[in-house]
């Protein structure tokens, strides 16, 4: 017999939890849902566009009746639960309907706060909370002329805007001096008021409501200063309160909201609570993003997986008034310990304020140009060190030297539907917008799954997030605060790395058990990551799991579109000899290699080699003195050099020998992502060292070291790390840098985003300012290299992993 789960509240929080639960444990519970409204679950955030006539109710339905039926959920709409009998474990609705539970989920949301002034209960005085309120407003707008909205916050302004669009004359009465004072600073609020006034709204600021007057129906609003405003409709939008009446009557501990712990349980462990009705770590939330995070955790515990924890959310807000772009997040008022970056262009209607503390972004207010809202929010959530971004931070992400992608970013909202957003998969803006609307997509992952946009190289992720935000409107948040490694786990990359070392987890199954993996044997995202983390944590001890490696690393060659492979032998420092070239030519001819290509990293690439032939061709290359170039792996790829002082009249050092020594030291190491090095013999930098992961630029006095460059998806010039005197120094710093990156970066994170995430200051501190620490890092790298500098090609030529290269059987 199934356990019984009763959900009180048929809104976004409750149903999101049920959806998450069905994904994890579809058969665990018989589910019963009570809703006080006579409707299925709809997207409450989009009530404003419905009121403004931009959307219809059907457009905002999230779960249709069919969905409840398909999932075997008993739905009781229009039945407000009025009593919980915790001893008998049952709930009772107003009409007497009862349901017993093993687990109870309270998702009762919030109730609008109604000012307790005389006349507040007159007909024509309403709140702005549900579809019934919207219907009442639409109805009133057909018959009446004058509306007063009490409250100039987010909700009040959206209501006022909607009513104005429906043809009413609207006055907003707001108690504080500025609009949306909880989201906006004074300057942005003033710009907003001007814009709204230009559209026809009227404002009474510092306006205190004394009484609502009328006979039979509301006729006006009387203010404390004696002014009287004509009103046929009064909308109160002065705030919401967690709806705790039911929970309180059942004796559950409540403060402002139902008090819950990190697993979303109330003081009665059988009773969970989620959404706007809860108080978590002293905080109540009225936005959708935190509620989705809570739903994930709650569902996880209801499914008895029991590993997620909700640790609070950072929130951002957007105003859903068409044509007005406004974004705010975090602490934007600042204090003695913070700094402000401000940009204001009144005639262009643009205002941006960023609040920084310790070179990290703490808050943002954007008016008029909110394209970078998601980006700033990401920087806040990740606690990114923005020291290097500061001079350009206010101008947005597009001004960071993002060559090739530059301008489209700023103009996503203005882009035509046929503009290509995702260049890898050929996905246009219109396709993405349509998918978001039609399929009710909420997250970046959803959009990736349904449209493929940003699912390949990821360079358009920011654009897709901007599209999500502009299409969904509302409090869309780009992602949850904590990003799990993959859907198999709730844990982040960092948590997993810490646990591997801390709990001495030494195999992939150990990690699965120790960290409560949700799948039996992981997936193609987590297994390669874990394999790398284990390899880095336990060098010489961990046995590489071939089946958890991507094909290229499993067979030490690069798969091509037709299923053949490419073979790139290592050419140390890019310097070769006629004899080597002759052997390469002979081998290429012997195996009838269809294409021979010179790569950008100074290597020779044989393309179109059939898998069965690989061991033989490697054997011949091995005999000619070549080893694998690891051009297929998340590994040390190439060290590119120029000829340096041996030949060049400008050369200052022997850059070629330096490059060869670096390559001899570093080859064979597995890394979080591919790693490219270069050594240039003078600042003319012919080896392009300043777009490499680790670049050396020789100068007369020694060597300049540069880190975190990238010439791929997003061009990034390196950061200058420090200058050193000798080749030995270069080797030590390089080894230490590579080891720090191996030990701390996330799998599949290149050095460029890694350096940006942790901050150059951190890398400098670890490498340039802490000599013992640097030496220890380098030693760990050298130690690990003892086990990794074995040529994989030679071994396979001798018969290792033979099964990978021959068919199981030929059927004639």
């Amino acid at each position: 017999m199934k356990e019984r789960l009763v959900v009180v509240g048929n809104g976004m929080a409750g149903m999101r939890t049920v959806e998450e639960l069905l994904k994890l444990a579809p058969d665990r519970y018989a589910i019963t849902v009570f809703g006080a409204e006579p409707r299925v679950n709809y997207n409450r955030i989009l009530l404003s566009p419905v009121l403004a006539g931009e959307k219809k109710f059907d457009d905002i339905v999230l779960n249709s009746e069919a969905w409840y039926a398909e999932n075997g959920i008993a739905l009781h709409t229009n039945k407000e639960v009025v009593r919980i009998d915790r001893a008998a474990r049952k709930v009772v609705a107003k009409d007497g309907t009862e349901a017993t539970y093993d687990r109870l989920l309270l998702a009762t949301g919030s109730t609008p706060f109604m000012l307790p002034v005389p006349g507040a209960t007159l007909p024509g005085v309403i709140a702005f909370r549900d579809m019934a309120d919207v219907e009442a407003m639409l109805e009133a707008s057909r018959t009446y002329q004058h509306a007063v909205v009490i409250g100039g916050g987010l909700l009040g302004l959206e209501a006022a805007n909607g009513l104005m669009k429906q043809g009413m004359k609207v006055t907003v009465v707001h108690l504080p001096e500025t609009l949306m004072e909880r989201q906006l600073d004074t300057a942005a609020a003033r710009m907003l008021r001007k814009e709204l006034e230009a559209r026809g709204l009227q404002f009474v600021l510092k306006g205190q409501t004394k009484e609502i007057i009328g006979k039979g129906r509301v006729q006006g609003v009387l203010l404390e200063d004696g002014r009287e405003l004509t009103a046929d409709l009064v909308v109160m939008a002065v705030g919401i309160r967690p709806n705790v009446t039911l929970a309180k009557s059942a004796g559950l501990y409540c403060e402002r909201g139902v008090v819950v712990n990190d697993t979303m349980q109330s003081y009665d462990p059988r009773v969970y609570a989620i959404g706007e009705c809860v108080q978590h770590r002293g905080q109540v939330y009225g936005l959708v993003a935190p509620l989705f995070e809570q739903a994930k955790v709650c569902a996880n515990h209801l499914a008895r997986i029991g590993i997620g924890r909700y640790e609070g959310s950072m929130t951002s807000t957007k105003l859903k008034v068409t044509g007005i772009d406004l974004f705010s997040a975090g602490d934007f008022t600042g204090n003695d310990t913070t700094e402000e970056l401000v940009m204001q262009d009144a005639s262009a209607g643009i205002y941006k304020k960023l609040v920084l503390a310790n070179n990290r972004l703490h808050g943002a207010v954007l008016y008029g140009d909110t394209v970078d809202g998601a980006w700033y929010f990401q920087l806040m959530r990740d606690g990114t060190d923005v020291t290097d971004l500061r001079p350009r931070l206010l101008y947005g992400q597009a001004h960071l030297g993002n060559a090739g992608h530059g301008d489209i970013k700023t103009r996503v909202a203005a882009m035509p539907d046929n503009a290509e957003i995702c260049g890898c998969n050929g996905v246009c803006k219109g396709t993405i917008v349509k998918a978001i609307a039609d399929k009710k997509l909420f997250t970046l992952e959803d959009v990736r799954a349904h449209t493929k946009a940003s699912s390949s190289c990821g360079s358009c992720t920011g654009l897709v997030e901007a599209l999500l935000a502009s299409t969904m409107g509302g409090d869309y948040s780009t992602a949850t605060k904590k990003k799990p490694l993959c859907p198999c786990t709730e844990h982040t990359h960092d948590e997993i790395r810490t646990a591997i070392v801390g709990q001495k987890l030494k195999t992939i199954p150990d990690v699965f058990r120790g960290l409560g993996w949700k799948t039996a044997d992981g997936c193609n995202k987590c297994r390669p990551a874990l394999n790398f983390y284990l390899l880095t944590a336990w060098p010489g001890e961990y046995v590489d799991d071939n089946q958890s490696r991507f094909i290229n690393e499993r067979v030490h060659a690069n798969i091509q579109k037709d299923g053949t492979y490419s073979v790139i032998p290592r050419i140390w420092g890019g310097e070769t000899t006629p004899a080597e070239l002759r052997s390469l030519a002979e081998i290429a001819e012997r195996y009838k290699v269809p294409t021979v290509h010179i790569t950008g990293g100074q290597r020779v690439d044989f393309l179109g080699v059939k898998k069965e032939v690989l061991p033989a061709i490697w054997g011949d290359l091995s005999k000619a003195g070549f080893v694998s170039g690891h051009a297929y792996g998340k590994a040390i790829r190439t060290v590119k050099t120029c000829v340096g002082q041996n030949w060049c009249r400008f050369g200052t050092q022997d850059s070629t020998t330096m490059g060869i020594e670096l390559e001899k030291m570093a080859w064979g190491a597995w890394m979080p992502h591919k790693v490219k090095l270069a050594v240039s013999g003078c600042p003319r930098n012919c080896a392009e060292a300043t777009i490499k992961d680790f670049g050396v630029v020789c100068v007369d006095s020694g060597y300049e070291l540069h880190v975190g460059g990238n010439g791929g998806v997003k061009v990034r010039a390196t950061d200058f790390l420090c200058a050193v005197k000798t080749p030995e120094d270069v080797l030590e710093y390089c080894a230490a840098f590579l080891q720090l990156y191996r030990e701390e970066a996330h799998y599949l994170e290149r050095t460029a985003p890694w350096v940006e995430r942790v901050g150059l200051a951190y890398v400098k501190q670890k490498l340039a300012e802490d000599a013992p620490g640097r030496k220890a890092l380098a030693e760990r790298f050298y130690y690990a290299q003892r086990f990794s500098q074995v040529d994989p090609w030679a071994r396979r030529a001798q018969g290792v992993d033979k099964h990978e290269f021959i068919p199981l059987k030929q059927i004639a």
Partner: protein
Amino acid sequence: MIDWIEIGRIEDIPRQGARVVRAPEGDIAVFRTQDDEVFALADRCPHKGGPLSQGIVHGKRVACPLHDWKIHLDTGLAVAPDEGCAASYPVKVLDGRVFLSLKVAARAPACATG
């Protein structure tokens, strides 16, 4: 009546891996899951023809090495929301010996064969 062809022993196929059988109708990928279940599919991803035998096997799915489509090993169908399927072939294991039939499973007539 099914014609079973013996193709090898189960331990010839790595767990969470696959081997290829060369057949007149094209390559067939024979997979072995973590739980020692064995499945056979045409070795062509319904997306761009990628060799599924080279993908990472997890649960009862394989991730195509070319563009990361996920394919259900038991049906050959692409994991939603992607659409398409690779033909599925009957396969059985007796005393550790693996047998394959070249008759495409009837339920998926529209699937791409090798």
